[in-house]
């Protein structure tokens, strides 16, 4: 790998990891949902420091260009993350619906009591 590319890759990985940890520290991100991002950040960092391992694994599974290996697994990883997000959003929607329904009924009871 070209040294310039490697330097860019390493600094981007470091930046990414830094932001993830910052957000975790500030409590913007829930740890439960951050763990995948932490792992992916660490993977990015190690892959940019030791690109030879990426080439090695790519060759092992029959992908001749290491960058294609990264693209492929990057997309797979993003798909999994997106699916996970959809699951979480659906769950939250369900919770909000239930809460709204209960709130409506409670409000009615309150109004009846205060009459």
């Amino acid at each position, binding site marked *: 790998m070209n040294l310039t590319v490697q330097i860019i890759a390493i600094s981007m990985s470091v930046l990414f990891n830094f932001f993830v940890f910052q957000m975790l520290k500030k409590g913007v991100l829930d740890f439960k949902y951050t763990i995948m991002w932490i792992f992916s950040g660490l993977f990015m960092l190690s892959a940019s420091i030791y690109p030879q391992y990426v080439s090695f694994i790519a060759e092992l599974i029959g992908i001749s260009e290491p960058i294609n290996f990264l693209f492929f697994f990057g997309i797979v990883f993003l798909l999994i993350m997106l699916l996970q997000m959809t699951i979480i959003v659906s769950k939250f929607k369900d919770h909000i*619906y239930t809460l*709204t*329904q*209960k*709130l*409506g*009924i409670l*409000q*009615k009871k309150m109004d009846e009591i205060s009459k």
Partner: protein
Amino acid sequence: MKKLIIIPAYNEEKNLVSLINEIREVPGFDYIIINDGSKDNTSAICKENGYNMIELPINLGIGAAVQTGYLYAMENDYDIAIQIDGDGQHDPRFLNNLIKPLIEGDADFVIGSRFLHKKGFQSTSARKIGISLLSNLIFILTGNKFYDITSGYRAVNKPVIKLFVNHYLKDFPEPHSIIVAIKKGFKLLEMPVHMRQRMNGNSSIHFLKAIYYMMKVSTSLILSSMELKDIDEEGKAV
């Protein structure tokens, strides 16, 4: 026997007063209006007239609004719950006809059908084609033939109230709930009712969205008929 009419209402300020007056002419029924986050004066009209109303702070959509009514019915120990749309297209004079099979124990879930006697408003032909396609789909999926599967005029007994509190599907509630109830082993029956063209306002399903709607509903009905096999394995207790 305690009977509750559930009226989901979203922006129905023009229709509610006459609907409630009609309902009051039929004795023996309580009613609850579920104001689904209306942006018009629905809430003010209900308060002014002292109507029995649950107000949802945000708009959840018809399925979840109706489910709120079933939750209220369960909490207040009602024996029968009847759904009537807030837009006035369902004629409350058919209430007693509708619940007769429930009282006599012939059914757990009665669908008010405008197609059985072919009287009253019969819907547009485009919509009828859609309804008949979905009706056939439900027949293929469950082996039961019902005609007016998108009818929102329906009555259920206590066990089905409980089912709807737990399993009412929020996206396409009318055809969905039929599949859920059949899969759970409940007895469904279609009874003739007359419907009217909406008094005021527009229907929530526009013509242009119809094809997209059909695709979504079909997919989700097929999925739900499969997914419910898993629910059944948890045992029949809902």
